[in-house]
Every structure is written in C-alpha cells, then in structure tokens.
C-alpha cells in the first residue's frame, strides 16, 4: 500500500532551489534512507513532509491526505524528529510524554499505560520522574523518539537522528529504530553518516543539489551501480594456482590479491558461485573462506557521488 506520494515538489529560498521538482513514492513498512551530502535538500524535504515548510510548487499526499490542505490531520499520523532539538527542560519525562499524548489526542484513560510502554520501549523507565534537563544527549535523543511513539504514528520522519551522539548512544538509538522497523513502521530517515543506515534501510534515495539522483530498493541499486558481486576468497597456500583457476571461470575479474586473500568481481548467480567453490576444493586448494563482500551504503554513496 502506497503511503506517501510526492509529485514534483519544489522548494525555493530566494534564488536557491533547495528541492528541485522531486517525485517519490513510499510504501507501507518501507525504511527509506535519504542520503546525500550537506545541502543536498534532505532536511528541507523532511520538513516539507512534516508540514513545517510549505513547498513552492508540487503536491504531496501522505496517507491519502493532501499535505497543503489537510496538514492538521497529517500531523496526527506522523512523528517528526528534527535534526537539532531539545524537549521541555522544565518537565519530567512522564509529564513531557503525558503532554504530547494529550496534544495528540490519545484517550485520557490510556495515557498512563501508554507513557509506561513508551518509557519501557526507549529504556528510560528508571528516569521517569527526572527532569529532562538532567538527561544526557543520547537519552534526550531516545526521549525524542519516545515523544513520537506516544501517539503511535504511521510514518516516522527522522532527520539525522544520530548526529552528535557517542558510539554507545548511537547503538542504543539504532536498536530502538531497528525495533520500529521490525514492527513494520514506515520510516524515512536522513543521514550523511552512512553506517547509521546500513543494514537498516530497505530503500534509499540519494540526493544531491536538491535532486534525487538515484532511488529504489537497496539490493536493486547495488546491482544497478555495481552490476556484479564481490567475492573474497582466502586460501591457506597456492594462491597463484587459485588465481589461475578463478581466471578461467567466466565473467570474473581479479580485483586484488594480498596475503593469500583474493578479491574477485564476478557476475554470476549463487549456483555458479557454488561451482567455483567446489572447483577450487576439487583442485586440492585449501579454501578456508569464501564469502560475498556485501557492499554497504558508504561504498554505494561514494560510487554514485564519483559518477555524479
């Protein structure tokens, strides 16, 4: 089911075109990573979707609502985490969540239960009566996600959620986001820290200078960009012989050979890869590792940027 449909939206600030006639669609349960360098237009796009900015031109339908006209209805169904934010320092965690629950019209009778659930979810139950000003940055970031969770939105819009966090806080936040994605929530997340999105996004849209340069499922894009798989083969000895055998195999290109470790670019299906492995073993080579070198978003980003 299509949850978001963006049709040629454009946002201009003076003579600067921040978002240039972008069209995009997102289906329910997708985790879309918006990647791109600073100034690519990711934040502007997210702020338009969050109903904070009005596009100069174009139309957006989110959950069937027209963004320009029904923005109040949309707000009830989305959760937006801005890039630089803080919460009400003079409130406790419980009070803050209660306030947002009330504002998002969560039924009065279930608010206390909902607040408890959210605090458990973001693992801040032990801080429920602490003031927000006493939380660490990582905790505030998780609390930010908690604020979004309190009204159980259908779509999450997260703008650089891990920026400024230390590695531990980043891992904790990532765990919360993974949990959300496993529950089938639709998430649109922007980042220029690509490892933050690796293994987490189902789809990506690469943005540059206000345009979407490339978009689609991560696997499709990998195929589209790299065309072939990268295989790492490690042998205990007779590396040269192994190289010769691999070279005889069709559609292969040896990329590197170092310390008995061979990296091969190969255009083949799984069955053919298994055949190559069997062939090497049959020729008496001691293969102790044969695995696909999964391309992460960082490689993708670098490759696309270089091509762009």
């Amino acid at each position: 089911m299509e949850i978001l449909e963006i049709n040629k939206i454009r946002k201009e600030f003076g003579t600067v075109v921040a978002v240039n006639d972008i069209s995009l669609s997102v289906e329910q349960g997708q985790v879309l990573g918006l990647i791109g360098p600073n100034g690519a237009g990711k934040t502007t796009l997210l702020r338009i979707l969050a109903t904070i900015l009005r596009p100069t031109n174009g139309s957006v339908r989110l959950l069937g609502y027209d963004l320009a006209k029904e923005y109040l209805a949309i707000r009830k169904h989305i959760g937006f985490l801005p890039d630089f934010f803080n919460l009400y320092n003079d409130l406790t965690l419980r009070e803050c969540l209660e306030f947002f629950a009330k504002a998002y019209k969560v039924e009065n009778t279930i608010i206390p239960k909902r607040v408890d659930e959210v605090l458990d979810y973001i693992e801040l139950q032990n801080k429920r009566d602490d003031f927000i000003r006493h939380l660490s940055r990582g905790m505030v970031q998780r609390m930010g996600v908690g604020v979004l969770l309190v009204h159980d939105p259908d779509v999450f819009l997260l703008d650089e959620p891990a920026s400024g966090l230390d590695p531990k806080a980043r891992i904790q936040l990532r765990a919360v986001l993974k949990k959300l994605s496993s529950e089938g929530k639709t998430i649109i997340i922007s980042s220029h820290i690509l490892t933050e999105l690796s293994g987490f996004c189902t789809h990506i849209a690469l943005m540059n200078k206000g345009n979407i340069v490339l978009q689609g499922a991560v696997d499709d894009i990998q195929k589209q960009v790299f065309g072939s798989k990268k295989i790492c083969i490690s042998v205990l000895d007779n590396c040269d012989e192994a190289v010769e055998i691999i070279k005889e195999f069709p559609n292969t290109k040896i990329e590197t050979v170092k310390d008995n470790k061979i990296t091969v670019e190969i255009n083949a299906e799984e069955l053919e890869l298994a055949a190559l492995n069997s062939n090497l073993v049959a020729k008496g080579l001691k293969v102790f590792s044969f695995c696909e070198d999964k391309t992460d978003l960082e490689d993708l980003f670098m490759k696309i940027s270089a091509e762009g």
Partner: protein
Amino acid sequence: MILNNPLIRRYRYSLMRPRQFWVSITIYIGIIALILFINYTAYQYQEWFGNQTRFLKGIYYQFLILQLIVLCILGAINSSSAIKDEVTGKSYDFFRMLPLSAGKKAVGILVGKNLVVLLMAAVNFILLIILGILGRMDPALLGHYFLVLISLAVFTNSIALLASIKPVTTKKKTHIVTFIILGFIFAPFLLSVFGIAARKINVLENVIAKFYTIELPILILISLIALYFSCWSIKGILRRFTREDEPLFTRMGAYLFMLGFEVVLFGLFYAYLKDGARDANYWYWLISLLPALLVPIWSCHSFEKYLEHSGLIRIKSTANKNLIPRMLLHSNVLFDFGLFAIWSVGSVLTIFLTGQELLRDLYNIIILFSFYLFLILLLELHVVYKPVTNKIGLLLSFIIIVYLILPLILFGIVESEGVYMYSLPGFAYRLLFNDADPGVSTLSFIWLVNVALCIIPIILIRTRYKHILAARSKM
C-alpha cells in the same frame, strides 16, 4: 473546556510546582499587605482620606492599578516569552507540529503561560469587588472598570504574543528579569503615589466620549476599541500559527484593517471635525497615515512570492510580451498605493467636513503622497535586493534616517523657514502647528525633490523585476 487544553496542562506542570507557586503567592501577598499597611497608616495617622468611604475608594483605585500591572504588564511579558522560550529551548519544531488548531495554541499560551498571573488577578478581582462595595461605588462603574481591565488585558497579551511569533533566537532575558525585579521593588511606592492621585482618577467616571454621534462613557469606548483591535491581533496570531512564512496580513485583510482603522479614528474625531477644527483635521490625517506606513511592512510579499508570481505570469503569457506591467500588478508598490488611496478618501472627507480650502489641502495630500512613495519604494528595494545582499536593510535604514532627519538638521544650521518641510516629520509639524501658507512654489519644489529621489529606486526595482522574470524562465 479551556482547561482541557494540552498546552495549559504543560504550563501547569512547569509553573505550578509547589515551591515556585508558593514563592509567587508569598511575594504577591506581601505586596497586598504593604499597600494595605501604607494606606491604613495614612488613614489612621495622617488623615489623607478624610472618611472611611474615601479611604476604601482610594485603596480600590490602587488595587485597580495593581490589577492593570498584573494583567497587562506581567501578563504581556509572559505571553511574549512563550514562543521565544520554545525557540531558545529548541523545542519549537515540536510545538509547530502539535496537531492543535491555531486557536487552541493561542488560548493555550495566553492562559497557560499566565496561570500564576490569572491566579493573582482572581484574588485581586475579589478584593476589588469587596472594596468597591464597601466604598459605596456605583455598580455600573465597577462593571465599566472590569470591562476596561479585561479588554486591555486581552489587547496587551494578544499583541505581546503576536509580536513574539517571529522570534529572536538570542537569549536576552536579563532586561525582563531586571524589569520584574524593579517592578516589585517600586510597585508599592508607585501605587502609593497613584493612591494620592486616586481622586483625580475619579474624574474618569464622569467623562462621556463621542463616537460619531453616539455618546458613551469613556471607559466603555476604550474597552470597545481595545476589543476591536484585540480581534485583529488574535486574527494575526491565528494566521501566524497557520501560515508562519506568510505576511501578517493578506492583501484583502490589510485593506480591511486600514479601512477599519479609518472608520474607528473618524468616529473618534467626528465631533471635532464637525466643529470645523483645522487642527483636528490634520491630526486625523497624520494619525491615520501611520497604518498606511506600517501595514505595508506587515503585508509585503517576499522575494519568493515574486518568484511564484512571475512563474504564474510566465505560464499565462507568451514569451515576447513585456511582463513588467503584469509584475507590477502583483507588486507591493501597487498594493501600497491602494492603502494610500483609502487614506486619501478619509482625508478628503475631513476637508469637506471641516470646510477647509480644498485646493490647498489637495496639494498637501499630493506632497504627503510623494513622501509616502519614496518610503514604499525603499521598502520594495529591500524586498527585491535582500537575496542579493543582507546589508541592504542596513543601507536603507540609514537612507531613511537621513531622509527624515537631514532637513531638520539643515534647518537648524541655515535657519531657512522652508527647509524642515523637506522631511516628513517637518512637513507634519507644519501641518499641525504652522498656519502660515508656504506658497505653491515651495510645495511644488518639495514634491519635485521627492519625485526626483524616487527615480533611482524605480530604475533599480525595474531591473530586479526583469531579473526575477528572467530567473524564472531559466528554472
């Protein structure tokens, strides 16, 4: 139910914590006790008030002023700080995202941020009623005072909130804190002074004001006018909360505001104008010129809006056509002419009503238009050149200051009678206080100078309009 508003709940959490709450209440009770003590001492030992009724009436007026300070000053400070707190606290995006209507947000801030103030005001209201009854005051008059208090409170608080919605991100709260501290230190002394003046305030009870031909107690008239402008201010708040990036007024809204201002002001001046007072005529002119000068700032279309318009113009037109006139049709300049036209209609009416010399005053209107034209052209320069350089605002402010003040300085140096009239304030001064006719040649020369000054801005604006149209065609 107002109290069900989530924003009120949020402020209740943060403002009504027992410790904070009791500190505020203790300070407030201290002030009340001090006022009562000073008055009682004055009554008992210095016989200021004469009898008990006058004594109680005297205290009544002091509490009335205290109420005014609490509702209109403390309340306005609170209301104006709400959005600034959100911005500096980096929670403004969450606030903007709340799925609450603009009305609920406005009520939430105005009531929620002022919970302590409203509590103080409620206590004060009870005291005012008791003192009013004991002081044998006319119940109708008590009602008038309450109406004034409420309408002024709504007016000042809504204006304060409206003014704060385009927030300043810097933390400059120290002056407010100082102001509150000074207020608490000096308030009892000031109130004592007001107590002495209370007998003078009594005069207000008997003043009847005229609005057109309707006679009204002045307190009622003040309340009605305050409520009328509160409506505009609340409308502005709602617009800001819904369309933050848009100007405060729509074009139609700006014309209606200008028209409404003219109608209210005309009503207030009507009795004087009907008597044929020349001064009243010009006072009316100049006071009603103020919104004509300010509304363009609050309703001017931005450069982005021009780009949008030029896009639409391009879609509707063939490429070879000269599009500048169509651009001008959507421009701020033409819209501002409309505001001046509304002003002119009111001003011409006053000429007829006061029986002034039509030709002479038409000259005056034309000259005022030339001043107005130069100022709105500078405003338009700001709009179209802002994306080019941020310094344009500074440069234009400097030009405006020089334009308004230089003739006055020159007048001080060369002591030539006519020089000060080349400045708008100088010209206004001549209208109000100098009956001597400067002659057509002097007036024509002022007009010519202003028109000459407009030439360069017109050329620059035209160039930018062309640039906008060209930029749009490339996108």
